[in-house]
């Protein structure tokens, strides 16, 4: 067991100070040098782009969930890069084969992330345009018709 030493936690304290300074500094800076044009909308309490007064049960696009989910996925996957970066030098010191192996493994991981990203883009998860919306609505209508229990058309059953 290592002895507990408070000094060892100094970097964390520094990190706190930097983070605090960054936040406070930015607010101060924009207060001091930023220009101000006050409009009605700007003076409303900030509520993530939604109307702050009104029904809370408003419907909003399912795409928000999709974006949030994709964000979390990539976020967690990228976190895996951090421990790798921390131990990379130590592992690489063990020889060329080890170095290459550890490097290639991580590149495969990043390539897989990229494949996922390309998939998401191609599937139109980030497409907020009118056309994507119309296509989605058409698909929803088709599915709804199907659910109503129409007899399957012959071409749908054909092998």
């Amino acid at each position, binding site marked *: 067991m290592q002895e507990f030493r408070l000094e060892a936690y100094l970097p964390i304290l520094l990190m706190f100070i930097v983070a605090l300074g960054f936040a406070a500094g930015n607010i101060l800076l924009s207060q001091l040098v930023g220009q101000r044009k006050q409009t009605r909308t700007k003076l409303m309490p900030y509520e993530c782009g939604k109307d702050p007064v009104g029904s809370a049960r408003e419907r909003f696009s399912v795409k928000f969930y999709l974006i949030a989910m994709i964000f979390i996925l990539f976020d967690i996957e990228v976190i895996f890069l951090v421990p790798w970066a921390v131990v990379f030098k130590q592992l690489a010191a063990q020889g060329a084969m*080890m170095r290459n192996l550890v490097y290639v493994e991580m590149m495969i991981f990043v390539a897989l992330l990229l494949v996922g990203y390309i998939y998401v883009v191609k599937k139109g998860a980030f497409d907020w345009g009118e056309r994507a919306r119309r296509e989605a609505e058409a698909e929803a209508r088709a599915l709804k018709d199907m659910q109503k229990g129409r007899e399957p058309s012959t071409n749908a059953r054909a*092998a």
Partner: protein
Amino acid sequence: MNFFAVALQAGTSPDINFPLILPEMIVCGVAVLVMFLDAFMRRSQRWVTGGLSLLGLAAGAAATIWLWTRGAGSLGTFNGMIVLDEIRLSFTLVVIFVSALTVLLSVVWVEGEHLPAGEFHSLLLFATSGMMLMASGGDLVIIFLGLEILSIATYVMCGFRRTDLRSNESSLKYFILGSFSSAFLLYGIALVYGATATVRGSGVVAGTTNIAQIGERVMAGDIMYPALLFAGAAFMLVGFGFKIATAPFHVWTPDVYEGAPTPVTAFMAAGPKAAGFASFLRVFIFGFPFVGAVASASSATNVHDAWLHALAILAIITMSVGNVAAIVQNNVKRMLAYSSIAHAGYALVGFVAAGAATDATQRADALAAVAFYMLTYAVMNLGAFAVVTLIARQNDRRTEVEDYNGIGFRAPALSFTLSIFLLSLLGMPLTAGFIGKVAVFASALNVGSSAPAASSLYTILVVIGVLNTAISAYYYLRLIIVMFFRERTTEWAVPRIPASMALVLVITILGVFYLGLFPGRVLDAFKRKPASGAVTQIAR
């Protein structure tokens, strides 16, 4: 634990041996490829993605057989994370077989339901790679990883018919209960890890999640917290019991199987059950092994006896509950769900026999019997569900028993094949189901006759198993009677059988009779040790 951490501690290069995980890598790679293709093709091309999936699975199977006969070259095992033994290889072949048949089963269906084929096939392949990892994991962490890869893909597949409420219900129920059971398993793993800490020399060595090491420490009797080990084993029993649908943890099965799209139900009843059995067997038989030599007061014998008796009781409850509840079902999918619970019970008899075996040959026989049982169950179950898929039509509308009224002579091909599968599920001689039951029951009787104490337990197990088979005759034969001897009052058009479905039916019918008439070759193959024996589990 962690690959990097181990490498750092040891100061040597890690124990890498890529050929050892070749089948998993192939299937996983093809899954990514299918996903990629799906993204780039405008309309989902079921034949392209389906054909590619089949090729990938065939390559995975070839790699598995290569591992079995030629061996993996050097002896690296990823620090004990991956094992190479006959359990892994036989169960891997079973799950690959199940997935290949599911691809064939779904390739027309997925288009008929207007669902994205590429997504379905890549999910199926990811689930398969998860199942293969469950079979090959020599470490609790890898097994859990495989289980999660499998589960997450199956949750999505259950809810694949997005506009159908039953499908949504099935997916949600499976997701909530499945995560709950995963939590049980994970908690069990954590407790076992804590319990297996041990004293070496002057210091305490941390616990282990490696199954072979757990087995060694339990056998040596030098684990620090035996009581925790019991708790951990109990939690893991619940977790695995859920996955293979044993009786007190089976309540999700009928709802999920009924609501899920029929090809997915076929897959879930055969594949994940086999994979669950593979890791369940590995953890309990190699992690908490039987040791006659150790004094009876030691923790090893205690934990072994505890799980063995618990499993014997579970087997009895599972068989009985599954069969009795199946009698009152009016929905064919629900009935087959209860039948799948009952079959898990029969396979558990073989599991108990493998656990109680006093020597290595007996154990190998019992393990091969369980793997063989899973194969026979997969063959007849997939065949039965293929017919159910054809009769159910779009949206799974016709799955009640009434829908089978009087179709016998109007669609003779379908009803005769379904009858053969039902008779095989019942365990008629000459069919695969019979030999499967004989194999697991015989292994239990063998163990019973050579075990010094409690031999009556195994006889009782087998007697209850046979009685349950008699009970099951009611509901299997009922469907056959309904098909051939009832009048049909409503209009009914004979479903067309697409080529891929016909192929599934031919393969499964041939399988039922091949395994029923010539089981010896497969059973012997499942007992065969891999070529490079140095990386097997424990030397007993």
